[in-house]
């Protein structure tokens, strides 16, 4: 992977950090040239995943990286926490499944908003990575 153009780490420790994270990611996405629809998708995805950290682990970190190439604008975001982990990832990815009083649209809904989505979880480490990619000049 080429050296990233931009990196930022946002700590997620309180529910007010959810607001801050989605706002910062929107600003970063706008500066990279993502359009308004994609900015909203990204900000919403960040909101969902940052909330997962707060609810499941209490605290964690959101790492935002610009890994754009000459052909593509690519934003990569990793959410990591040291909480108890997700016991059944397949179940958590099902529509309508919720442990947090939400709509159960958190993880599966988030996956539909962005291009790349991967999740790994074990007790003590949960990492969710998302990517949005657009051809340069098209977004």
């Amino acid at each position, binding site marked *: 992977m080429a050296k990233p153009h931009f990196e930022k780490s946002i700590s997620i420790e309180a529910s007010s950090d959810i607001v801050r994270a*989605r706002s910062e990611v929107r600003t970063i996405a706008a500066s990279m040239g993502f359009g308004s629809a994609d900015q*909203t*998708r990204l900000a*919403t995805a960040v909101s969902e995943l940052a909330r997962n950290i707060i609810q499941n682990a209490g605290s964690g970190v959101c790492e935002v990286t610009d890994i754009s190439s000459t052909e593509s604008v690519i934003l990569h975001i990793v959410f990591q926490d040291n909480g108890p982990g997700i016991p059944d990832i397949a179940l958590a990815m099902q529509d309508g499944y919720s442990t947090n009083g939400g709509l159960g*649209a958190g993880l*599966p*809904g988030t996956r539909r908003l962005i291009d790349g989505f991967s999740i790994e979880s074990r007790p003590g480490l949960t990492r969710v990575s998302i990517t949005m990619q657009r051809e340069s000049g098209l977004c």
Partner: protein
Amino acid sequence: MKIPILRLGRILLTSVQIDLSDNDVLQFQSDVVAQISEVEALGIAIDISALDVVDSYMARVLSDTAGMARMLGAEVIISGIQPFVAMTLIEMGRGLIGADCVFNLEQAVERLNERIAERGDKFSYLRD
């Protein structure tokens, strides 16, 4: 963060002008419900045109708030959902907001008045 709720006869008007934390959203919900009950409001318009992110949690709380308001006896209209917010909510998989929506606050008040007139509350003095 307190969201002002304005009273116009027996209609309530409220406009969310800043990005709300989860706690703010819950506070807003209980303020809305308390205020509806206190003035026995016949309807409430909730304008969210300034919100550029409505995630599943916020959508859930708004939807619940609408349900609570109806349970008390008030009509509910949500106005001003931004186009990209609508796209995102539907893409996430659901029509997440369980209340009628209109473009702007003016339409919201019109629609509320129509609804209230249809209900035929005798003491609705919002129409001539």
